[in-house]
């Protein structure tokens, strides 16, 4: 009888149960997100210049250049990855050919590589002894080396971005109703119009979501940049330099916070765009 009452008693307080259930999540959030973030923000303001360190982006040209380079690179990589993955993803969903399953599973291969390996692959391709250089020397007499430039970073970032985007695109393209395209064709729509009016609007939520992940990953990528960036500064590299070589811990922390904020703002912008779209399937 007391047991029954106990049960009854608890069931009258759903808020309490919810609170108990939310406790682990709350602890994790507090310990691994909120506390380190607050600490990072505080450290960022603890240097000689104090909170003014957060304005270093404006006062130190090197930092501003590094930020602009990182944003432009990430944006370029994201847009290119979206374009390539959309064409390839829709093709892979629409066509059945021998070896298709093997190809699709191979596409996810680069997901397992750390950035260093990807940097190494870019050097093998476009480094001083690279394939591109040798072919170019054979054809034109000039050795083409771009592994250690922005172009090299671009190729490396693109390489690890495409698998992330293409899987999302393929999932969205599977759900496309072929009748929609047939209806558009019966109304006289040319192929480019069907892409613009039917296929892209249907893929849009998936493209925005995977584009956002691709952008954030590129903004924070370090391993590839560390392997390749001898002449160029992307923001994660600048943070590393400030932290290890200059022992400017406050500067590194403030740059980290700004990197996080810029990326977060870009993702929020993307999310507000996708909020206005209607998921187009069935």
């Amino acid at each position, binding site marked *: 009888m007391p047991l029954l009452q106990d049960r009854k008693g608890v069931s009258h307080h759903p808020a309490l149960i919810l609170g108990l259930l939310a406790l682990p999540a709350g602890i994790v959030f507090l310990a691994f997100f909120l506390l380190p973030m607050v600490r990072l923000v505080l450290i960022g303001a603890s240097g000689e210049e104090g909170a003014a360190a957060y304005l270093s982006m404006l006062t130190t040209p090197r930092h501003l250049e590094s930020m602009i380079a990182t944003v432009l690179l990430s944006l370029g990589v994201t847009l290119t990855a979206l374009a390539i993955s959309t064409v390839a993803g829709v093709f892979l969903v629409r066509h059945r050919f021998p070896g298709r399953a093997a190809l699709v599973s191979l596409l996810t291969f680069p997901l397992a590589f750390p950035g260093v390996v990807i940097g190494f692959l870019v050097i093998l391709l476009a480094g001083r002894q690279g394939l591109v250089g040798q072919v170019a020397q054979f054809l034109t007499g000039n050795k083409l080396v771009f592994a250690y430039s922005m172009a090299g970073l671009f190729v490396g970032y693109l390489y690890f971005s495409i698998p992330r985007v293409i899987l999302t695109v393929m999932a969205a393209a599977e759900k496309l*109703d072929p*009748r*929609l395209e*047939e*209806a*558009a*064709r*019966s*109304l*006289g*729509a*040319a192929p480019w*119009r069907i892409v613009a*009016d*039917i296929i892209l*609007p*249907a893929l849009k939520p998936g493209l925005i979501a995977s584009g956002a992940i691709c952008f954030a990953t590129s903004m924070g990528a370090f391993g590839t940049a560390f392997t390749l960036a001898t002449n160029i500064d992307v923001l994660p590299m600048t943070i590393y330099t400030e932290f290890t070589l200059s022992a400017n811990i406050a500067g590194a922390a403030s740059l980290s916070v700004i990197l996080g904020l810029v990326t977060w703002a870009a993702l929020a912008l993307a999310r507000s765009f996708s909020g206005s*779209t*209607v*998921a*187009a*399937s*069935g």
Partner: protein
Amino acid sequence: MPTEKTAITLTACGKTFADGTRALQPIDFTIAGGETVVLLGPSGCGKTTLLRIIAGLEAPDRGGRVLFNGEDVTARPIERRQVGMVFQSYALFPNMSVRQNVAYGLKVRRVPRDERSRRVEETLGMMQITELGARRIDQLSGGQRQRVALARAIAVRPRILLLDEPLTALDALLRDRLRVELDSLLRDLGITAVYVTHDQAEAMALGDRVAVMSAGRIEQVGAPRDIYHTPATDFVADFIGTMNRVPASALAAWEGNAGDAVLFRPEDAEIVSGEGAHLRGRVASSLFLGDRTRLVLESDGLQPIIVDTGHRGTIQVGEEVAVRLKPDRLIPLPATGGESNPC
């Protein structure tokens, strides 16, 4: 709508899919301008494939030709055939409003803005969906979606209207209402229409002619009345309506041919007191349908016999009854084994 009505001629249109499946035997078929033809058959009989060949979504096998008013359009893609299509799943564009959906074909054809919006409003009015114009597609009911799909197809004033099971996804009550509306719409438009369905009630109500299909071939083409009363093949006899099949040898006091089977509809037999009866059977089940009662009779050595009766008295299950056929209402026996020549 165009004053010139488009006739459709198919010659030797067969379809074999890439995996070797024969979906359609080579078919010759002519549909007159302004006529509504219903392709009726069970799933997998090739009716949708035939529709898609007319639409231009599938190409017929080599040698097959599709002609609109005598002009060969076989090589012309659907974009340039000027056909309107309505799908079972409606296939409305989810990223556009109702009005944008209906306007899409006109926009693609670069109809000037004024003319476009005038025709869109006119079409919405004709389908009685003017007040839905600004709605999103996911805010519409099934019946409303079907009206929008029809409006979108006819707004461009197509030469031919092709409908692929347009009412199948709707519930029975709505289906009946929309069927009546669709019938009067097709008559008002006077447009050549090809309508695919597996529902014989729809086929009977809508078709000027009905083509009954089975296993990739057309079994019979004719007015609904002819299909019902004089089926050309065994398949048509069994597929359309309910049919009783009794060997003539099982009938008492039968004056007709004693050799073959006798075919009759449930409504063409009556329960009699015993005099002049052709058959006797025990009532296995009795289903009261309001205007009539459907009895299933069992008789030794025969398949169950279905009889509709307007008899007001109660007939109990298990009771022995006598049945009299109406000799003038018997269905002529289809030529068995003979090749049907539908056209």
